[in-house]
């Protein structure tokens, strides 16, 4: 029942296998001819081009106003003044904190409930199972934009406008996660669950301490997607929040940038602050995140 069993078991999954293959890097034979050198050079140049917007954003956030319109990437006189200005404003810290709370709570809630529902629909045979699955799956077809008006009316009625709960409630569960988790619980052998039942564990314990540890990689993949989605979410927080204290980072950044208008070094600093956390998380957990993206993408 331990994690040992889980690894060998999950590895049977072809998705997992192709994700792992991807992480091992290229398996192409080593060729040393000019075509291969050109290929490498073009790809590398393309990659550098891809991160140029990020590089200019970072470099400008360290520049004084007089240097902003220069094309040079390394500031001649690097300064932290933009950061001091933006952070002393105080609002950015508040927005950062709001986004962190919203993204963290929705991630915890989604991962918990999506896994619970996915497990139930996968491992129990009960009347109504198919109907529930189809009903939840069908909500994937409903775009958020169709629901924002009714959500707004609902929030108005219950006094949820301009509250953290108001920002969060639409994202507490995701149909995508249910589907993803249901697929991954298929890889947990029924024998394990049966054995745990004979050992006298109740159903909740079986789910939490037997089945859940076996799908950890899938849980992580789901968590990454939900967190990133909520961290960058824009249209619903824009609608539901009215006071600046309640803004999330993207909504705050819009307001801040409109105010600053021509002071692009400050706009870039704001953008850098809102983008850096996810970029750093990516650079640290790169392999892990790419594996998660492949698993979620191919299974979802």
């Amino acid at each position, binding site marked *: 029942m331990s994690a040992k069993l889980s690894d060998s078991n999950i590895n049977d999954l072809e998705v997992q296998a192709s994700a792992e293959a991807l992480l091992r890097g290229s398996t192409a034979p080593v060729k040393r001819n000019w075509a291969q050198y050109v290929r*490498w050079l073009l790809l590398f140049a393309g990659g550098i081009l891809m991160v140029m917007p990020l590089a200019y954003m970072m470099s400008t956030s360290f520049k004084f106003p007089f240097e902003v319109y220069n094309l040079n990437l390394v500031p001649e006189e690097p300064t932290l003044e933009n950061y001091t200005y933006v952070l002393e404003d105080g609002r950015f810290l508040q927005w950062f904190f709001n986004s962190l709370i919203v993204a963290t709570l929705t991630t915890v809630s989604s991962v918990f409930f999506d896994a619970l529902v996915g497990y139930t629909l996968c491992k129990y045979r009960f009347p109504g199972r198919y109907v529930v699955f189809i*009903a939840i799956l069908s909500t994937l077809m409903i775009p958020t934009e169709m629901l924002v008006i009714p959500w707004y009316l609902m929030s108005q009625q219950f006094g949820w406008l301009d509250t953290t709960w108001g920002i969060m409630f639409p994202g507490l569960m995701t149909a995508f996660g249910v589907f993803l988790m249901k697929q991954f619980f298929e890889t947990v052998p029924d024998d394990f669950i049966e054995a745990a039942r004979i050992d006298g564990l109740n159903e909740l314990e079986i789910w939490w301490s037997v089945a859940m540890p076996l799908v950890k990689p899938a849980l992580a993949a789901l968590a990454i997607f939900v967190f990133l989605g909520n961290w960058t979410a824009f249209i619903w927080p824009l*609608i539901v929040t009215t006071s600046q204290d309640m803004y999330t980072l993207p909504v705050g950044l819009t307001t801040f940038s409109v105010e600053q208008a021509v002071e692009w070094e400050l706009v870039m600093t704001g953008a850098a602050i809102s983008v850096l956390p996810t970029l750093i998380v990516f650079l640290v957990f790169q392999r892990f995140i790419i594996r998660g993206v492949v698993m979620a993408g191919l299974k979802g």
Partner: protein
Amino acid sequence: MSFYDKLSVKQKQTLWAWGFLAVPIVFYVVVRFYPTANAIVLSFQEWNLLGARTWAGFDNYVTLFHDPVFWKVFRNTFVYLLIGTPVSLVLAFIIAYHLDKVRFLHGTIRALYFLPFMTSAVAMAWVWRWFYQPVPIGLFNNFLASFGIAQIEFLNSTTNALPAVLAPAIWAGLGFQIIIFMAGLRAIPKTYYEAAHIDGVSGWTIMSEITLPLLKPTIVFLVVFSSIGFLRIFDHVFNMTTNNPGGPLNSTKPLVLMIYDTAFNSFDMGYAAAQTVVLFVILLIVSLLQLRLLRDR
């Protein structure tokens, strides 16, 4: 407890299952199904948030059909889709195909392409907006000027603004598509290629007879995934044209921005709801086409 003990194993499991599903079912009914029904009902009503909701029959849909702005927006939305999806897919495939054949610094190059996917659309919209500014502010025009090339109007031009807004959306999504394509390429058994090499099949034939057909599920998935994304484009447009959202002259306005405007600036809730129903139908058609294509596999 005694009641529970009397149940059969099967009944106990049914009880647990519904117990596990209780809270989620309440959520899906209250936050997904009821609002969907509400949006559809509202689309047949007239309401400005303050007065009473009055029935309007098909009035909202008729107005929408005769609204020149709607047709402009409808066209824009499909231009986003019809440029965005092919361009991003072709680029992603070419990069993935070649990256798969490269070993030196493979992971680093992959990370470079993937990084933009981890950014927020709002932040990057502002970065790109800065790039697009005229001389002496904007990066692109400064760059052109340093080669003595004439200025390009990006966001202020009715013809250039839409591609200019679309570019960062394509840029940000590219990394995800590359990763998915590479996973798809890896899933093709090596033996197929070896057999083709032994038979002396040319590179282009391998591409059209082996690689592309076997990649079909991946391609269909990415087409639908990115199509839905481009049909719902909003964050980029809103942030790059804040002084006149969807401008100049509605030339960049997508359907979602029209919905937002109608609902939260004009407070014409019924009319906005009718627009959301149209969006829903478009997305439904795209999703059903996917199912159709996958079944034909």
